[in-house]
């Protein structure tokens, strides 16, 4: 086997294991934080500070009965959770977690692959993330599930445009489609300062894409029970759950890479290992903000959601692209 494949295999396995642990402890972190926000204690029985709670949850889900509703489309019902997971995992392939460094005498980059058109790769991957949820809703053959699934996909495509245009502004400013290039271009200042409008648009659309509060209409339990998840149980449910939390990490990673300087920070050139620390801290902060928002903001109405996407964010992001183009042309 070619050496680059061995290297990639090792990196892949580490990445997947990190994402799995990250997911497990993110569920605990969210429950703990939400509890704090609401002046409750939160999980505290399994292990000290509830640290073994994720493990207990996993064991519970393992031994839950798994069923497929009689009238469901059996094949797609089983495939939908897996289809949801594909784009969720794929996003991480192009994210630089740290700068180039020497590990055990081996020079490597802390990024799975640095493809030439990395930004387009991200756009392409987000665009196919609609399928899993739509299909889950449809395959269940349940009215709540179908409505939840369709709502989800309409929401995602409505916000995808503004998100794409915010990314175009980033490309205009940095002049590269390579993800590592975008991080390196932020050495003289994070893009959140150069492109504040794009950063805000990206943040809001990102929330909508990963369906976090206040954009969690898909799971509006008062109207839709559990949306597309209604008929799912046991491990199939766990896969969706995992996908949602890993997407939170993915959102944090993308926002950090595009706007918060990625792994950059003081002394990162002297000690490249610090890059990973900076990256983790930034992503952690963003995830904290996501949880904070969930504890703070009420869910918005569906018509408000659509008009925010189409009448505010889309024109704003178009204007931002044009404005950026003019500024870049004048300063160049």
């Amino acid at each position, binding site marked *: 086997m070619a050496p680059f494949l061995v290297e990639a295999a090792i990196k892949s396995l580490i990445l997947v294991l990190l994402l799995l642990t990250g997911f497990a402890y993110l569920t605990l972190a969210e429950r703990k934080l939400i509890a704090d926000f609401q002046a409750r204690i939160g999980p505290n029985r399994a292990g000290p500070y509830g640290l073994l709670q994720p493990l207990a949850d996993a064991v519970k889900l393992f031994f839950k009965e798994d069923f497929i509703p009689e009238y469901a*489309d059996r*094949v*797609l019902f089983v495939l939908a959770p897996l289809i949801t997971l594909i784009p969720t995992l794929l996003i991480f392939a192009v994210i630089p977690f740290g700068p180039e460094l020497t590990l055990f005498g081996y020079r490597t980059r802390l990024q799975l692959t640095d493809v030439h058109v990395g930004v387009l790769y991200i756009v392409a991957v987000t*665009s196919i993330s*609609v399928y899993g949820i*739509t299909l889950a809703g*449809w395959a269940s053959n349940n009215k709540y599930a179908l409505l939840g699934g369709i709502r989800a*996909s309409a929401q995602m495509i409505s916000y995808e445009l503004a998100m794409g245009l915010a990314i175009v502004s980033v490309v205009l400013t940095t002049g590269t*489609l390579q993800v590592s290039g975008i991080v390196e271009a932020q050495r003289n200042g994070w893009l959140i300062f150069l492109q504040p409008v794009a950063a805000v648009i990206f943040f809001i659309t990102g929330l909508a894409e990963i369906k976090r509060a206040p954009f969690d209409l898909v799971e509006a339990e008062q109207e839709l029970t559990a949306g597309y998840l209604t008929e799912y149980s046991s491990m199939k449910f766990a896969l969706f759950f995992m996908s949602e939390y890993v997407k939170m990490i993915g959102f944090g990673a993308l926002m950090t890479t595009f706007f918060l300087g990625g792994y950059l920070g003081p002394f990162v050139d002297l000690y490249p290992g610090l890059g990973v620390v900076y990256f983790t801290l930034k992503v952690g902060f963003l995830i904290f903000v996501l949880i904070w928002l969930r504890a703070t903001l009420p869910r918005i109405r569906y018509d408000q959601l659509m008009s925010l996407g189409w009448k505010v964010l889309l024109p704003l992001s178009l204007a931002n692209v044009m404005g950026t183009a003019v500024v870049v042309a004048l300063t160049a």
Partner: protein
Amino acid sequence: MGELIAFYLLAGIAVATALAMVITRNAVHSALFLVLNLVVVAVFYLLLGAPFVAMVQIAVYAGAVMVLFLFVIMMLGAERVGGTTGLRWQVPLAGALGAALIGGTLFAFLRAPAGLAPVGSPPVPFGDPAAIGERLLTTYVLPFEITSVLLLIAMIGAVVLARDSGPEGK
């Protein structure tokens, strides 16, 4: 060598998904086979050294056009096509046209085997987004601007259709 194996493997998948798409009775399954087919074609573009086109293929065809298809299929409740279809004369016509296409391709293949020799690796900026952008706005600027007019017309058409078939009938 690895590329050749990848090609045959993918070609097999492409043909299989295309056939499955036509044969499947359930329209949602058909649409999904088409998505799979489009993704495989995108991988072909990657093999040909055109990553930009590959990504666009996924973002636009697999990510946007097929979502629209899926919406329409789900919306009409037309997932399962009944035993009798409204297609009568179309079936033999499609068969004849398909046969003609295969015949034409075979003819070209047999007539000019020299044209099928492997071409050398493409020039360096080939398929590079920056190079495409530059061409688009210099050499091909007229077609490019006409495209925007076309998109505008499509938009107006969509809105007009929407108003006529909207649930409120406004």
